[in-house]
């Protein structure tokens, strides 16, 4: 029972039965009333504080996971453990005709909901699960719905490619329509993707965890050099190199076909040369870029080479980079990446290559790949995600989470 000040007044004024008392003097009676008043008001304060602290996990916010496979809910479980809350009760499954069905088993009326969604191999199903869950919560009158999507899918399809689609923009519109009002993600492939959204996007960074790993787990890291596997990754590599006070090297060449070459903006297909027609206007053809053979700019002789990137997916580029680094004298090769997608036969290629260790975070589930290739190590980032959730819910500043981040990271 919550005592409020109004009721206390009546308690104070109305006669109070005190057990075991025979006869009370008037002066004593006033003293007793005063004591009761003080104790009641103290109790009232304590009771209201208890009400606040005890009920914040229950009525403040809820955390749901919209994944159907148990490998994906691992990260959600770690985050909820750190927050000290229970994962929301819901059932997510695929029916026999492959339709996704979601059942939310508790009331979410008027609450702030965080949906944690990790993206496994089956990307489209995971997206659908997230959309269905968000819409279900929206129609159940949740106050606001915040998506926690550590690895944001389709982030590589964020530029116009010939007659393709900017899927990232499509996805952003779909998430807004489904009812999300805020997204927490990690290491977006292109920071500009934040502009596709009509609501706030918090782009957390995994680099503090990875730099800590380098400082703690790489023996003799002061003799290391940070390597960018292509010129487009040079900015990120430089920010790591600055923070660790190490040197920088860049790999450039034929084998490194960067995706920026494939995203050719609005090229129409080349028009057929009309020799019979118009004699006047002949636009000069663009000279094809000549790619030199693969080479390393910078000195890696006798050092540990650490390649940093945001996503490690198809590993052919990394394997080629490791080859050339080995040739130039690097004696150990590490790869640090935030999102370890490791598709197709990446584990086998890594196992057979010159790479010594691949370090990824647990934003993308990769247990199967770890079993196939013991060179893969995991860094847990649930701490920063849990902290972000806590701060957003309490309305606190997130600046602390970005304090050591360079402009180019």
């Amino acid at each position, binding site marked *: 029972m919550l005592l409020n000040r109004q009721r206390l007044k009546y308690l104070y004024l109305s006669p109070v039965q005190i057990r075991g008392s025979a006869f009370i003097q008037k002066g004593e009676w006033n003293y007793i009333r005063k004591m009761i008043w003080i104790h009641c008001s103290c109790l009232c304060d304590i009771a209201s504080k208890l009400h606040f602290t005890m009920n914040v996990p229950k009525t403040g916010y809820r955390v749901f996971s919209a994944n159907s496979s148990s490998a994906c809910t691992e990260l959600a479980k770690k985050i909820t453990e750190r927050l000290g809350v229970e994962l929301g009760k819901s059932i997510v499954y695929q029916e026999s005709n492959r339709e996704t069905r979601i059942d939310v088993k508790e009331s979410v009326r008027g609450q702030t909901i965080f949906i944690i969604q990790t993206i496994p191999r089956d990307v489209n199903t995971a997206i659908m699960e997230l959309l269905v869950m968000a819409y279900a919560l929206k129609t159940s009158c949740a106050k606001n719905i915040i998506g926690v999507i550590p690895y944001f899918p389709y982030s590589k399809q964020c530029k116009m490619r010939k007659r393709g689609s900017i899927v990232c923009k499509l996805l952003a519109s779909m998430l807004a329509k489904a009812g999300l009002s805020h997204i927490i993600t990690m290491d977006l492939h292109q920071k500009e993707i934040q502009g596709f959204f009509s609501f706030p996007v918090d782009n957390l960074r995994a680099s503090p965890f990875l730099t800590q790993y380098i400082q703690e787990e790489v023996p003799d890291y002061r003799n290391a050099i940070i390597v960018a596997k292509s010129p487009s990754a040079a900015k990120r590599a430089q920010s790591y190199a600055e923070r660790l006070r190490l040197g920088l090297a860049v790999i450039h060449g034929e084998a490194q076909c960067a995706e920026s070459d494939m995203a050719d903006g609005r090229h129409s297909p080349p028009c057929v040369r009309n020799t019979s027609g118009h004699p006047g206007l002949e636009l000069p053809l663009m000279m094809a870029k000549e790619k030199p053979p693969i080479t390393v700019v910078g000195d890696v002789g006798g050092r540990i080479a650490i390649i940093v990137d945001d996503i490690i997916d198809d590993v052919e580029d990394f394997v080629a980079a490791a080859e050339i680094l080995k040739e130039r004298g690097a004696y150990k090769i590490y790869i640090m990446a935030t999102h370890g997608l490791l598709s*197709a036969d990446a584990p086998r290629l890594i196992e057979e290559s010159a790479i010594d260790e691949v370090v990824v975070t647990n934003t993308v589930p990769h247990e199967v790949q770890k079993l196939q290739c013991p060179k893969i190590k995991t860094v847990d980032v649930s701490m920063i995600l849990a902290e972000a959730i806590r701060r957003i819910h309490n309305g606190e500043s997130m600046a602390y989470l970005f304090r050591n981040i360079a402009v180019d990271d």
Partner: protein
Amino acid sequence: MPNIKIFSGSSHQDLSQRIADRLGLELGKVVTKKFSNQETCVEIGESVRGEDVYIVQSGCGEINDNLMELLIMINACKIASASRVTAVIPCFPYARQDKKDKGFFDIPVDNLYAEPAVLKWIKENIPEWKNCTIVSPDAGGAKRVTSIADRLNVDFALIHKERKKANEVDRMVLVGDVKDRVAILVDDMADTCGTICHAADKLISAGATKVYAILTHGIFSGPAISRINNACFEAVVVTNTIPQEEKMKHCPKIQVIDISMILAEAIRRTHNGESVSYLFSHVPL
């Protein structure tokens, strides 16, 4: 026909090819592939600037993948300056979770009916059709069944059941008479086929001579095929809104009605700005 392009998603290329053949067009060039991280990538292979684009994609198989592919294709066409993009979705996914009613969409919806094709099939393939009974396996399909029964000028019956939970049936009561007649079960979709197999047993035990099942969408997931093989159907007829070649190999009772001409005619009429309501009661040749 000028200014029209038809693209096919990867869910039902056969139907799209038939539609294109009936319209006398070639299917548009589009490359749909998946990256190694299972992300879908779509690239339209020809210019769609200023064209009226139709994308044919059915909600079957891996529904979420096909849905995503459809969305990406529509998006790609819009960015490439198509003048109008229409999605042709023979089997609309997630239709049991929400109603695919006109009021739920902000854009024009044309919901075509397979009924004319079904009527034509019955007249051509069931010799005793003049003396048959059309049966609905549940009370919700009564309207559909009475409309067919009226056009054929035959009787109808329905089976009333109490369900414990979805995809499991409880008691079934037959309302109407099927004794010594051919019974034709009509429903809109068959997923695990629990309902229609129970209904068939009920009809046989009530005295029907033969039982046919005619379903618009044959999803046939889970134990459906084995259930049909063990049940007492004369034939199970579905339309080709969902590809059926694989299932027909496992179950000889399945027959297919081709509805590509209805879709092709709808596309032609929409493109020319004509009325589509003719198709609600007639099957184009």
